[in-house]
């Protein structure tokens, strides 16, 4: 009996060893960046194999916060993501409701079309959009970019919210209809409060999308005062990154922290939202 116990102990030991190694590999690039962000510029650029060379310093963080327009970028990102959230959610909530509650001609076909359009990589039509926006003088304008982001997140939001509406029993609405509630009252007083959890999760996912988007931000916003966090970070490494590399890691860490926090809060909902169908690609 004790022989088996020892065998189990050994097995467990190796399993734990294996997972410590795997976790180390998974975290290594992030840890490395974290360590470098606390080092002075010259130490980070040494080619020697060393993790802690020189003294730790907060200079990079001070530098990125006070000598670079980090707050300007943050403000731009916030503006864009809140704008996108409002436009995308308010456009999609009523149509999600319609697709969930009404049975009408063309419903299934439209949903199928939405699924296919949702799978379509927007990069493929980026030039057409660029030309369109140039003609309409919407380049370098935040409302223009908000429209693009809202458009690309609208289908996702419709499908996500529809999936949630499907799980709300219809009886509640019918009861209030009998009580003589109008369509608008029904929407504002009954549906929206009931759908609140899903609306919050969808809104947060829209926010993460905008926060993490760099390609459209760097293509459609040309002035450096209108850079978002993503665009700014991108520019920071694009312009001679070897010199500003510790600075860049400090910025990268600062930008990632809010996303990491939000991610771990809504992580559970994300997995269930993704597996329960409705949203693909």
């Amino acid at each position, binding site marked *: 009996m004790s022989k088996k116990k020892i065998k189990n102990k050994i097995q467990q030991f190796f399993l734990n060893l294996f997972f410590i190694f795997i976790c180390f590999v998974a975290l290594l690039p992030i840890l490395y960046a974290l360590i470098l962000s606390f080092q002075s510029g010259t130490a980070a650029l040494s080619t020697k194999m060393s993790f802690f060379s020189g003294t730790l310093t907060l200079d990079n963080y001070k530098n990125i916060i006070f000598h670079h327009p980090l707050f300007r970028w943050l403000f731009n990102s916030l503006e864009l993501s809140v704008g996108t959230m409002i436009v995308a959610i308010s456009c999609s909530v009523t149509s999600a409701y319609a697709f969930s509650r009404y049975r009408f001609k063309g419903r299934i076909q439209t949903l199928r079309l*939405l699924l296919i*359009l949702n799978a379509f990589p927007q990069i493929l039509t980026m030039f057409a959009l660029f030309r369109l926006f140039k003609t309409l003088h919407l380049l370098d304008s935040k409302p223009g970019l908000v429209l693009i982001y809202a458009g690309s997140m609208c289908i996702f939001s419709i499908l996500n919210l529809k999936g949630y509406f499907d799980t709300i029993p219809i009886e509640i609405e019918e009861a209030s209809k009998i009580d003589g509630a109008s369509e608008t009252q029904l929407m504002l007083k009954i549906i929206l409060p009931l759908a609140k959890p899903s609306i919050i999760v969808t809104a947060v996912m829209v926010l993460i999308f905008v926060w993490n988007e760099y390609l459209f931000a760097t293509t459609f916003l040309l002035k450096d005062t209108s850079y978002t966090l993503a665009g700014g970070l991108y520019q920071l490494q694009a312009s001679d990154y070897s010199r500003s590399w510790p600075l860049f890691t400090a910025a990268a860490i600062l930008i990632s922290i809010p996303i*990491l926090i939000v991610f771990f809060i809504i992580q559970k909902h994300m997995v269930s939202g993704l597996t329960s169908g409705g949203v*693909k690609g």
Partner: protein
Amino acid sequence: MNWKRKYQPWKHTIPAFILIGAIIIFPIVYTLYISFTNMNLYHWDNYGFVGFRNYIRALFKVDSGFIEAIGTTFLWTFLNMVLQIVIAFFIALGLNAPKLKLARVYKTLLMFPWAMPAYVSILLWKVGIYNTDFGLANKLLSWFGISKIDYLSKNVPAFLSCMVLNLWMALPFMIMMFDGALQSIDQSYYESAKMDGAGFWVKTLKITVPSVKNIMMPAVLMTTFTTFKQFDIIYLLTQQKGALTGATLQTIITYVHQKAFVSNNYGLSSAVSIVVFVLIILISLFLNKGLKEEAL
């Protein structure tokens, strides 16, 4: 009254469809239009129609590079998916080993690469890991006494570097999906298999794999699609504006971007976009068949 009933639902969808029409559908139609013209930097306004010439050039002229890009894309998708599924499966299996007390801690730690903003991870890898002079990968090599490698300057090492990064970024999601699927398996199967004296491999192949297969289908198809569409990794690692590393790796998505925004051949780029779009419709029709229709 009847009229109202019929159009009531559509009324709710008007705002969304104006937005989708302007931002998603119109650009697709416009791309189709551009694909039949010779629009480029010199013909920005005075472009002319050239019929199917762009399509012929993309599909039948080897020098256009599009066929090569298709090959790269399929190889990329295939290798990534096989590795992802196999590695994620075994890691998830390990996480579900009966006596692993710290499983929750490991799971949380493993989630970090997924939680990081993708472009931040890619840029961190580009300068932190793959940089020839002070990247971690070469530091490790020199530690073992091996000479430095220029990871991103040739196609094959660049492809492999992109793949390692993609695995790092995509595995956490796959592991969590497998983990969930494994936990849904009825434990009594294993007990009766144990009674019959089945070993690890028999149990895995005869019970675990068949039970997990169907649950994992949607997640696997979805990931296949995102891998197929992957743009950021290859673009940010090897072909940023003004920071080309020398590798000429192109998938179909980066190809479209490169033709439109680098070599300014808008007609050709648009033709390729349309071809890719048709390809995507075909693939998603095929995938939707594999998925349950209940979502609708």
